[in-house]
């Protein structure tokens, strides 16, 4: 309603409150305070950052009631003080005042004065800024005039204004536009920070409630101005996890119960649960007990809850504001932000919204009001989600989900339900079940055969021959224990399990003993009992032995995964953690991962990440168990995140925001699996986008500088994958990630870390700004140092990074000075395709420097490059052809050198038959370079280069068009080639190139046409294809070469026409 001009942020992000008097006030919340601070910083810095714009006189002054005493202006320079008025000494052009304080009203006319005022206000500036915004709900309209505020919708208004700006250019309007854009930037910034706020934790936890209660208690009590009469817990006993609700209610997520006595209503009995705050059935008559049933909607915190029920609370809360500001507000207390209050519903200017608001006023139905808040609250989040997930993506994922369900349904029907008791399981029965279960899993394989899951690191179980002799005593020890497991009651079983853990379960013969004695079946069957102690004991052993591939497959074959997934629902926290951790170990191969997904494991595992201590940086002891659950959940997700479908399932289960929250914590043991999962999932574009937009890059960068090498490696790996996107590369730089990356280059011992770090550097170096930073940190020198004695995974990335860095001339020289060229040339003899792709690119970049070229030539690098044209990989061919160009340009006696390669020219001409566009374009470029030498041109003409080039003419690829046109232009200079091009029908397509949208194509084409127009027949073809008109337009170009070529071509056509006319009539 009032401030839509300051963009969305002011109207929606701020939390407005309406007091009964009808004026709108800003609520006192950390979010608002944060936004205000940003606005103040903007205003204070404005005069120094934009001095010209700062003196622009506002259309109307910003006017508000100040609480400052005018006497403080005595300290500031540039003010004239007369009795109760203060005036600025600075005057506008027309001599009007720029700033005045009369009695208690302030008027400010420009940003310069605003910034001074706020500086003088010192510690009161927050309060002043708040009053100012409350009094001026449409600051942009006041500053720039109403035309900047009336246009509906943001994007529309931008277009509208730009349109205006184009139509009449006058300095004032331009100035206004600049200010408008600056304000828009501020608006975006505010919106971003408020979104960040909102996207944080919005589940309640004992801490948050406790803080809120304590805060409310401070401003409650007897008296007129207090917000409440009293606020009490129903129980003083606090459980070790911080909850006050009895354990059997905690399973419903309930945390504690409160009795609240407001001034104006009956006592309210409320339940605080993880989902939020709601009214319960109240205290039962005369007793101290509570009816736990929910009687109201759920609000996100106590304050919101009370605001809807007690008008006095709202009123007095507003009075308390000032005091609130002075107190150090605890972030946690108001972690759960309301984006907007009920009034916001009327904020849009449209008529219907206005009526809606009126209805609210009349009906005063709290329920209706609440609903409208909910709607508003959702707004920013939804629009933000929309940007994250493209519609098409969702469509596909839905389809995939359907398929999954079908699969699950079918496999579910196959699955045998067998209930077992913990004691006395005969081995025959066990064996029978095993056999049946094996059949089931075979069915799985068939059912999901259709799914096209591409996975790397597939592990195959290694079957070793049975060893009967020389078995160590442990083997027989375990065999002995087997009878306790098979024949004992739960007590004996638990004792046997505890004892079994004392064997060294990491040793293979112990694992074999467990398998051979039939213990494994018993262990799996124990999981399916109701005996929690047996389940825990069994999982403790399974967790250990599942480190072994053979055991993993055995556990999966026995149906262990399905049961463990089921256990994830158990109320026992230790049991859940153990099950998740064991799943993490077992789900290392494709089929196991699929089993986990098909039995709903991904959803449950993601659920484990959701606990009250999410994202908090310091953990209390009672949160340790929750954190352990989350850690194990993340470990299992990490294992499961290898397949595309599972990545998708994690995303659909809402895993990304949860991972983002855990990423903020500072414990390496949980960060490692979280970053590991993210790193794995970053292969999917949807994850990369989410990681960028959810601010995860910052945390990844932060963890690069930690102590833990594995974590550093995973973070660098995640950046490696994410930095494919330009915005992410910029973010890495902005968060200061380039320096830690360059420091990590020093750690040459840990090869995995080095590979990830060099990979991240490579991808980051695709942005020029990053390369400059890298130069500053001496990364190029360090990379050159890594060119020798490194494994190929590292080399590929190092050379990729060097290739990107070499796009800048300075760095090419640096490589030479560090003696980097010989090792690079040396690597041309390698066989690793990925490596060759990067090496050829790097050498091509280096060869642009004549001094580098001398070294390359000396080392016979060109011959090596040339021989790579024979490589079967098209990427290698393309890059080698590309690298050859600068070599020929910069080598001495290039023509002689080229001729010296036996069969070299045939090879190049032959590559014109390739199917790969990139190869073709680059080979054309190479031919252009080669053809600069007349003798070589003669040879390739002889080899039939002209018809081959003509054949390529009908292409739609701009890069190919350009290089092809260049090659044709160059080849025209020999013999009858011009005529041959005409005969092989290259001219007409070339004319059409002039319509291309790429200016570099125009230039090359005009040159080619100019060359071709020396032949009269070609002139006719050009004329017939309408070349003249197109060329005439090119003559007007600012590019002189293009101009000249176009003009030359037209002249040739014209000359021919004249000659014909002359012949006809002369």
């Amino acid at each position: 309603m009032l401030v839509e001009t300051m963009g969305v942020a002011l109207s929606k992000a701020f939390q407005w409150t309406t007091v009964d008097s009808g004026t709108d006030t800003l609520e006192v919340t950390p979010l608002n305070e944060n936004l205000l601070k940003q606005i103040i910083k903007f205003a204070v810095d404005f005069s120094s950052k934009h001095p010209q714009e700062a003196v622009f006189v506002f259309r109307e002054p910003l006017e508000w009631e100040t609480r400052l005493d005018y006497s403080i202006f005595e300290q500031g320079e540039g003010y004239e003080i007369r009795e109760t008025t203060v005036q600025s000494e600075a005057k506008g052009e027309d001599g009007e005042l720029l700033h005045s304080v009369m009695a208690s009203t302030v008027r400010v006319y420009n940003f310069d004065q605003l910034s001074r005022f706020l500086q003088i206000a010192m510690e009161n500036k927050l309060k002043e800024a708040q009053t100012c915004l409350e009094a001026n709900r449409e600051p942009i309209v006041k500053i720039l005039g109403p035309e900047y505020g009336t246009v509906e919708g943001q994007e529309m208004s931008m277009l509208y204004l730009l349109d205006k700006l184009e139509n009449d250019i006058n300095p004032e309007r331009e100035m206004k536009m600049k200010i408008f854009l600056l304000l828009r930037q501020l608006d975006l910034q505010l919106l971003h920070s408020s979104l960040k706020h909102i996207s944080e934790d919005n589940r309640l936890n004992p801490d948050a409630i406790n803080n809120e209660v304590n805060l409310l208690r401070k401003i409650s009590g007897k008296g007129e101005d207090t917000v409440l009469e009293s606020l009490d817990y129903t129980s003083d006993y606090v459980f070790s996890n911080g909850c006050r609700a009895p354990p059997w209610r905690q399973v419903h997520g309930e945390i504690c119960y409160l009795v609240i006595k407001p001034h104006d209503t009956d006592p309210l009995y409320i339940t605080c649960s993880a989902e939020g705050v709601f009214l319960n059935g109240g205290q039962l008559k005369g007793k101290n007990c509570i009816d736990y049933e929910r009687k109201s909607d759920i609000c996100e915190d106590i304050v919101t809850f009370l605001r809807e029920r007690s008008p006095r609370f709202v009123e007095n809360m507003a009075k308390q504001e000032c005091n609130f500001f002075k107190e150090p507000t605890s972030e946690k207390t108001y972690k759960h932000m309301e984006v907007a209050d009920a009034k916001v519903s009327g904020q849009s200017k449209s008529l219907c919204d206005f009526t809606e608001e009126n209805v609210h006023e009349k009906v005063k139905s709290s329920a209706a009001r609440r609903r409208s808040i909910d709607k508003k609250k959702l707004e920013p989040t939804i629009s933000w989600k929309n940007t994250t997930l493209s519609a098409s993506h969702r469509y596909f994922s839905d389809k995939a989900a359907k398929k999954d369900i079908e699969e699950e349904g079918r496999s579910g029907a196959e699955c045998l339900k067998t209930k077992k008791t913990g004691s006395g399981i005969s081995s025959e029965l066990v064996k029978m079940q095993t056999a049946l279960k094996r059949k089931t899993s075979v069915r799985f394989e068939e059912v999901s055969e259709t799914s096209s899951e591409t996975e790397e690191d597939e592990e195959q179980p290694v079957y070793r021959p049975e060893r009967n002799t020389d078995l160590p005593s442990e083997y027989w020890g375990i065999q002995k224990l087997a009878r306790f497991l098979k024949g004992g009651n739960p007590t004996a079983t638990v004792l046997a399990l505890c004892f079994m853990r004392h064997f060294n379960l990491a040793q293979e013969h112990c694992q074999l003993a467990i398998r051979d004695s039939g213990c494994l079946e018993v262990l799996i069957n124990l999981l399916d009992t109701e005996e929690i102690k047996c389940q825990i004991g069994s999982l403790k052993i399974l967790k250990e032995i599942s480190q072994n591939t053979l055991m993993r497959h055995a556990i999966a074959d026995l149906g262990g995964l399905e049961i463990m997934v089921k256990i994830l629902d158990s109320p026992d926290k230790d049991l859940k953690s153990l099950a998740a951790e064991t799943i993490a170990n077992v789900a290392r191969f494709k089929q196991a991962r699929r089993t986990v997904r098909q039995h709903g494991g991904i959803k449950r595992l993601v659920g484990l990440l959701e606990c009250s201590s999410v994202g908090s940086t310091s953990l209390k002891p009672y949160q340790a168990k929750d954190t352990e659950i989350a850690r194990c959940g993340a470990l299992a997700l990490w294992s499961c995140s290898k397949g595309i479908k599972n990545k998708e399932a994690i995303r659909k289960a809402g895993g990304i925001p949860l991972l983002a929250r855990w990423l903020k914590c500072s414990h390496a043991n949980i960060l490692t699996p979280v970053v590991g999962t993210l790193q794995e999932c970053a292969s999917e574009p949807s994850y990369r986008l989410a990681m960028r937009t959810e601010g995860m890059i910052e945390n990844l960068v932060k963890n690069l500088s930690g102590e833990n090498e594995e974590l550093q490696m995973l973070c660098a790996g995640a950046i490696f994958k994410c930095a494919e996107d330009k915005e992410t590369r910029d973010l890495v730089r902005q968060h200061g990630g380039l320096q830690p990356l360059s420091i990590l280059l020093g750690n040459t011992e840990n090869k995995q870390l080095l590979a990830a770090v060099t990979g991240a550097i490579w991808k980051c170096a695709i942005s020029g700004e990053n390369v400059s930073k890298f130069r500053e940190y001496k990364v190029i020198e360090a990379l050159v140092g890594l060119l020798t004695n490194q494994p190929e995974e590292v080399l590929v990335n190092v050379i990729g990074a060097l290739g990107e860095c070499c796009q800048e001339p300075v760095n090419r020289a640096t490589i030479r000075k560090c003696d980097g060229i010989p090792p690079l040339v040396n690597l041309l003899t390698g066989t690793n395709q990925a490596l060759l792709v990067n090496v050829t690119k790097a050498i091509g970049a280096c060869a642009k420097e004549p001094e580098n070229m001398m070294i390359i030539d000396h080392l016979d690098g060109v011959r090596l490059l040339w021989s790579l044209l024979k490589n079967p990989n098209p990427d290698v061919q393309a890059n080698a052809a590309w690298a050859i160009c600068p070599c020929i340009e910069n080598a001495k006696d290039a023509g002689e050198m080229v001729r010296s390669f036996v069969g070299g020219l045939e090879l190049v001409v032959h590559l014109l038959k390739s199917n790969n566009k990139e190869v073709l374009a680059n080979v054309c470029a190479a031919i252009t370079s080669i053809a600069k030498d007349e003798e070589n041109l003669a040879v390739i003409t002889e080899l039939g280069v002209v018809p081959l080039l003509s054949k390529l003419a009908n292409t739609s690829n701009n890069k190919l068009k350009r290089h092809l046109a260049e090659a044709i232009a160059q080849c025209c200079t020999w013999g009858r080639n011009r005529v041959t091009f005409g005969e092989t029908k290259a001219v007409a397509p070339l004319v059409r190139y002039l319509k291309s949208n790429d200016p570099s194509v125009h230039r090359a084409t005009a040159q080619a046409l100019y060359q071709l127009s020396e032949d009269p027949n070609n002139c006719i073809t050009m004329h017939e294809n309408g070349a003249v008109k197109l060329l005439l337009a090119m003559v007007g170009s600012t590019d002189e070469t293009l101009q000249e070529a176009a003009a030359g071509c037209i002249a040739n056509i014209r000359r021919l026409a004249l000659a014909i006319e002359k012949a006809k009539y002369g």
Partner: protein
Amino acid sequence: MSQRRLQQLADALGRSAKHFNRSEVECLIKLFDMLVAKSSGRSTAVGFDQNMFRDALHCTFGMTDDILMDRVFCIFDRDHDNCINVMEWVEGLSIFLRGTLEERIKYCFEVYDLNQDGYISREEMFQLLKNSFLKHPSEEDPNEAAKDLIDIVMKLMDYDHDGRLSFTDFEKAVRVENLLLEAFGPCLPDIKSSMAFEEKTFQETRKL
């Protein structure tokens, strides 16, 4: 029971049974009265006798071992008058349902220390474990199996190698491996039955 007595009792117990709040204490008192009245039929009864308590343990928490149930009765019955009065009932349940690890270690040790001499001897273990093998392997004497099991227990828990378990041994072993808390048989409710009991007691009893 008079309202006044209920109030007084609840006040007194609210202080000693530290894991329950006042209203929960009241519920437990009511449950106690109800159970006593129902099983004895006499309104003058002051508490549970051994059989009634055993029934309660069996029905509510699924306990089956007679020896252990009698031991639990003895632990609840602090004044050894063969009757669990209301105070003993509430205080006992406080540890039984919500005890800390320390309290539970102490409680379990007391349960297993059959002769209450401060040690769990091999003989006591045999008493407790002799019925562990419901389905004895045909070729073997179940008593032999129990003895083998006791050997295992000694290896796991007898830290000072004196052939018996002191409280220190027991506590140390449980802290290393929590599963050993109920090493000699179930004497605490499992999480499901205890939650069911609490829900039933604190929700339904209140309505009476």
